[in-house]
């Protein structure tokens, strides 16, 4: 019986074991980014910027040249890289603390300047690495170690919707929010990543894909239940879809 391989780990990632918790969707997202960069033949000419958070070690996982940026600064680091290496593919990989808290100025301004980079934004509504503190994207009523009674609007405001916010910034070209909670959504997420790197290749400007992601350990639930929690609680507040498409050109599918 002849067997044809239809799915296998690619060369977009190194063969290091990922440092993420069991069932953490960071791994799925890493895999998709690696697959897209490999399939589009970009991985050998790519420079990624790792951020600070659970994905701090991502400079060991993406199979290309990497920078380790300070917390929140990845879009500025990527700006510096892309401006001196305009023909290379440049991406950042950031969590919700990194991008939506300390790094809010850097992400808005990179979008505002229309930097020709791609941002992979992983939103799991919590600070994973540091032990489960509240994030700017933590939901109202969600208990974290710094909102032990549940996030209260009067104290901490309502969660930030980054894709919607950046859609108001003139320089942003392509913004889409996706999820990776089941195979159908994983396929759609991959298409979104392809579109984002297309935008960069065609020099059409700034692209960001926001991923609804899970954090089983800090949410305190099993990985599969965490995907259900994301569907039931996060997606209603952070709806999936394209928030900006200023490419003005051919649409896929």
């Amino acid at each position, binding site marked *: 019986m002849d067997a044809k*391989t*239809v*799915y296998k780990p690619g060369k977009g990632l190194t063969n290091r074991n990922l440092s993420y918790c*069991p*069932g953490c969707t960071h791994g799925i997202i890493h895999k998709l980014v690696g697959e897209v960069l490999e399939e589009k033949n970009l991985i050998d000419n790519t420079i990624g910027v790792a951020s600070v958070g659970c994905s701090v070690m991502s400079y060991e996982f993406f199979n290309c040249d990497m920078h380790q940026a300070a917390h929140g600064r990845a879009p500025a680091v990527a700006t510096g890289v892309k401006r001196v290496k305009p023909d290379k593919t440049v991406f950042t990989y950031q969590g919700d603390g990194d991008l939506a808290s300390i790094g809010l100025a850097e992400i808005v301004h990179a979008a505002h300047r229309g930097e020709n980079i791609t941002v992979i934004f992983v939103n799991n509504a919590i600070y994973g690495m540091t032990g489960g503190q509240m994030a700017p994207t933590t939901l109202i009523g969600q208990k974290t170690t710094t909102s032990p009674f549940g996030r209260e609007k009067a104290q901490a405001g309502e969660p930030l919707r980054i894709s919607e916010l950046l859609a108001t910034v003139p320089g942003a070209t392509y913004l889409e929010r996706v999820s990776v909670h089941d195979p159908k959504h994983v396929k759609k997420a991959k298409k979104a990543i392809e579109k984002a790197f297309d935008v960069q290749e065609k020099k059409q400007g700034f692209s960001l894909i926001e991923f609804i992601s899970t954090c089983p350990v800090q949410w305190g639930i*099993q*990985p*599969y239940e965490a995907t259900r929690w994301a569907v039931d609680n996060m997606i209603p507040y952070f709806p999936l879809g394209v928030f900006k498409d200023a490419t003005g050109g051919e649409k896929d599918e």
Partner: protein
Amino acid sequence: MAAKGRIIIEQDKCKGCDLCTHFCPVNILQLDTSTTNALGYTPLKVTDPDKCIACSFCAMMCPDGVITVERFSK
């Protein structure tokens, strides 16, 4: 029923997260509680390989790139 394909599991990379088992449409994936792997986790096993339809859902959902999927040709 003959299997449409099979999966190859890199046992010692598996973290026993149980995501893939929930997404298998033919319910043939389970964690093998009789053993632990090199990482100290309960790894994946295929309970009924003949039922595999090579849909790749398990591989897609695996955060650690543990699964390779092969489809059999006639």
